[in-house]
């Protein structure tokens, strides 16, 4: 910070010197402007921090090692990000256990896993670890969240600032985002429920930023990708015969179709996907196959909830990172399209 001040002072002196040669009146104006920018830099608002984070996450060359904690399990992972030919490239892998890697570049994402055939999907959305907060529209998000600067701390050896995304109602989780004060890169993300219990946590343990793109990434960008899979879009032309009459603030229906559960006897389901920029929620409506003793059932793991509700010969399942109350209210609002 001191350095920065010194620098701005030097700059001011320079400006004064430069413009005094021309107009004395202009000089004082220039000084005022530079003083203003100093003030601004010292007191960024929460939303400005978050927007700087988004930019850094896209534009910088960096490598992070991070831990993903979920219910007593800690999974170490690695992300290398860079920009090659003005395009983002991201290489991701699990560090423990079987080799599991992915590479996202130029509108495609490839998955590699030990023992199975690698494949590529078309994908323009960033899929890496902090992508949900890095892609979020924070201005629009003010309808559903408040952004509050909590304070400073230290993460992965870096000065960090904590910002809370506090949900304005009980229908979504809240988040605490820690950013590196120098680079604005995200260092930690906690998902919290209403009673401030941490449901899910991603924590960076090592962050390396480099001027140039990692040579390994440059090499990867030229590699031939595995076979591109065409998505089973054909079956999605028909909309489901169901609609959701209530949506939490900020959520939109982004998919509405009928498809089959390929992992389970090709069972046909009606499907609706909701999204609020941070989380995606799947709604499945199908025939009741196995009757439950009770009408509804809740399974929760970390932030993910699976809520099952049976009525008549219909079964509704909701999957996503939302509180149970939201799932329940969604189910109540589901109706058949007349």
């Amino acid at each position, binding site marked *: 910070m001191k350095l920065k001040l010194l620098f701005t002072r030097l700059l001011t002196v320079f400006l004064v010197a430069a413009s005094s040669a021309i107009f004395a009146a202009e000089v004082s104006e220039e000084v005022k402007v530079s003083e203003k920018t100093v003030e601004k830099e010292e007191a960024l608002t929460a939303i400005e921090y978050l927007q700087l984070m988004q930019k850094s996450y896209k534009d910088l060359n960096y490598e992070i090692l991070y831990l993903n904690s979920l219910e007593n399990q800690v999974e170490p992972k690695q992300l290398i990000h860079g920009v090659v030919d003005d395009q983002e490239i991201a290489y991701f892998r699990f560090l423990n256990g079987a080799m*599991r890697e992915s590479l996202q570049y130029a509108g495609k994402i490839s998955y590699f896993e030990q023992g199975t055939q690698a494949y590529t999907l078309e994908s323009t959305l960033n899929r890496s670890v902090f992508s949900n907060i890095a892609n979020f529209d924070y201005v629009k998000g003010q309808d559903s969240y408040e952004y509050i600067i909590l304070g400073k701390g230290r993460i992965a050896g870096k000065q960090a600032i904590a910002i809370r995304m506090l949900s304005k109602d009980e229908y979504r989780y809240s988040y605490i985002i820690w950013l590196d004060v120098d680079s604005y890169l995200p260092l930690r993300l906690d998902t919290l429920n209403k009673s401030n219990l941490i449901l899910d*946590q991603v924590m960076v343990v090592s962050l390396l930023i480099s001027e140039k793109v990692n040579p390994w990434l440059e090499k990867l960008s030229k590699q031939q990708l595995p*076979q591109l899979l065409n998505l089973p879009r054909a079956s999605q032309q028909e909309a489901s015969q169901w609609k959701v009459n209530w949506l939490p603030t900020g959520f939109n229906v982004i*998919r509405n179709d009928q*498809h089959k559960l390929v992992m389970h006897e090709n069972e*046909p*389901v009606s499907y609706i996907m909701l999204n609020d920029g941070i989380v995606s929620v799947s709604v499945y409506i199908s025939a009741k196959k196995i009757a439950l003793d009770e009408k509804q059932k809740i399974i929760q793991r970390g932030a993910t909830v699976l809520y099952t509700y049976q009525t008549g010969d219909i079964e509704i399942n909701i999957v996503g990172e939302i509180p149970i109350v939201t799932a329940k209210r969604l189910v109540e609002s589901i109706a058949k399209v007349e």
Partner: protein
Amino acid sequence: MKENNEQLSALVDNEIVDYEVFDMQLLDELITNQQQQKQFSRYHLIGDVMRGDVSDQFLNIDISQQVMAKINKQTPSAQVSELDTAVNKTGTKEGANIVSFAKRFSQYAIAASVAGVVVLTSLVTSQPGVENGSQGLEVLNTVPFGGAVSPVSLQATHMQSKQVIKERNERLDALLKDHQLQLQIQP
């Protein structure tokens, strides 16, 4: 016919040296005759394959669709009819597409975030959840980490047999995986 094919092949390979000799009729025929057109494109394909110009995708899809179409002819899908309330009939060809996709689909992508969920499911119940507050709801609500309490008591509901529970778990597992799959193929 055979002779024509030979000439076609030569045409494709740019091996016709003497255009005077080359029968202009062949070209006329090519324009009108479907059989010949097919043969023509096949020669081109062969040439492309030999030169390595063809993407695998093109070839694979061609074959898989044919194979799947045959399979589908043999086994008319039975499960569609029993579900007219929730889901309309889905064409068999589309199904074929999905099957081939699912086979390719690696477990890792889906397993990453949901693995282990189902192991814990259904069998496990606890007191009515704090969060939902309503009575009689089964909630599995364990503390994520930090070693705090995990109210995981085994209380399988008496009415359900093991088989039913197993089936149910498989289905929930499929739902979770499908959720991940849909996330992945989200445009």
